[in-house]
């Protein structure tokens, strides 16, 4: 732990890592709360796995066609948005087939990604860092992109708070009040897609869903209103990403997995605590 604090002063990669975690936490807390209360975790999972297609394709173009500007994160953003819109339209137009389509998009996205990564010349260590995250590898360029995405997601998530709240709570009623419910539902899925991309840099594709939902689910047990849930869950996420990074640094553990284990532990402790509280009250 002390090793982490000492190195944090000197090593820019650690500062970038810490900052990435903190920035991603804000979007995660806000959008995660919408996702958990609207119960669309499974959609978020589908979007997360499709990100691999974008990461793989962009990396392939970088190496094979020398498109140096095409950072894998751009690919991730595009893939996530496409997945969000496809799943969103299907869930609006053909609700009974929603789960099938999510499953299909999920698997096809991964398959495309794996093919690109397999065909990219050079070492294939990228795959591991995409799947399980490598927060220590975040560069200055990436940090700017992450900050930009974060500002976008947080601004939209807060600006349309009342509409999104109404659509998540009672879509039909919102529609009757003249709110374009389909638009806001798709907006929510797109914001979820961007948040997923942010979180992929922190914990990797496979564990995104845990970071998106565990803090929000924890916060939900102690919140009476959605914004309280967002605030609490943002603080929670900042806490676990920062301490996950700090705890994993000394013993050289994977930061992503450490973060998720911490989040899981706090979530379980939260359930026990809220049970105890309600037992005491009654």
């Amino acid at each position, binding site marked *: 732990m002390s090793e982490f604090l000492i190195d944090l002063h000197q090593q820019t990669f650690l500062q970038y890592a810490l900052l990435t975690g903190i920035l991603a936490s804000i979007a995660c807390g806000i959008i995660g709360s919408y996702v958990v*209360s609207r119960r669309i975790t499974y959609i978020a999972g589908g979007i997360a796995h499709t990100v691999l297609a974008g990461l793989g394709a962009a990396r392939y173009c970088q190496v094979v066609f020398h498109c140096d500007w095409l950072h894998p994160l751009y690919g991730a953003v595009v893939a996530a948005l496409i997945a969000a819109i496809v799943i969103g339209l299907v869930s609006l137009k053909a609700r009974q087939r929603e789960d099938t389509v999510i499953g299909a998009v999920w698997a096809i996205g991964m398959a495309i990604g794996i093919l690109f990564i397999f065909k990219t010349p050079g070492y294939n260590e990228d795959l591991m860092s995409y799947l399980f995250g490598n927060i220590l590898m975040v560069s200055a360029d990436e940090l700017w992109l992450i900050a930009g995405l974060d500002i976008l997601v947080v601004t939209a998530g807060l600006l349309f708070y*009342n509409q999104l709240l109404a659509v998540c709570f009672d879509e039909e*009623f919102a529609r009757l009040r*003249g*709110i374009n419910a389909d638009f806001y539902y798709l907006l929510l899925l797109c914001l979820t897609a961007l948040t997923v991309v942010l979180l992929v840099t922190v914990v990797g594709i496979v564990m995104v869903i845990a970071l998106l939902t565990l803090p929000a689910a924890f916060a939900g047990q102690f919140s009476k209103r959605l914004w309280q849930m967002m605030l609490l869950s943002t603080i929670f996420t900042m806490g676990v990403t920062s301490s996950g990074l700090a705890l994993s640094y000394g013993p050289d553990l994977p930061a992503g997995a450490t973060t998720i284990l911490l989040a899981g532990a706090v979530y379980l402790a939260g359930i026990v605590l809220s049970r105890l509280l309600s037992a005491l009250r009654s």
Partner: protein
Amino acid sequence: METQPVIELKKVSFSYDGITVLEDVDLIVREKDFLSIVGPNAGGKTTMMKIMLGLLKPSTGSVRIFGQPPAKTRSRIGYMPQHASLDALFPVSVLDVVLMGRLGNGNRFGLFRKSDRETAMEALKEVEMDEFTKRSFSELSGGQQQRVLIARALASDPDLLLLDEPTSNIDMAVETELYEILKQLNEKITIVLVTHDLGFVSHYVKSVACVNRRVVVHPTSEICGEMIHEIYGSRVHMIRHDDITGGTDTCV
């Protein structure tokens, strides 16, 4: 000259997946009417309400609300959906829920003004829930939640109130309170509600539309056990609180 009807359905039919839910429905609801839509499960009650709201389009026939297509007059309708359709764990306060009734009243980014909050508070007062403003919606009892949902519908400043099963999963005493509130509101606005307990509601409403694919409208005075038997096709116990203050129940 007669005033323009609030709701006018002409020869409305609706089918879903080839099954006819409503057939040849004619219905006129006039200003300050208090209409109850009754009928067996899957008889088309909710479908009829959704057609009035413009959420469903009839296969044939025409729908006019305040003389216009429903989509154009939605802002004048206050709607309360079936309670079961809402997520019981959603983190939202009572005031948050009622404020949703103020959405779409010209506030672009959905930021509520002071006047929106005042209207919401007034609506809560009408249903006697103004002391619960800051409480979590999910902590409330079934009857309290129903009242908050009525307040949300009222917050839209409606000229027409549509309620879908407002008394499902609440007990008799609370139900009486709820109908007393509705009766008062009816002095100002037209109310249409869907319910399955015809006998009880007949004490409060002015007319009853019996829906079982087809629709027959009766003034309340005509309601009797035989008629219920006819609609439901089986023997139904009819409970009527003839003397509410005394609390005696008369079973017919």
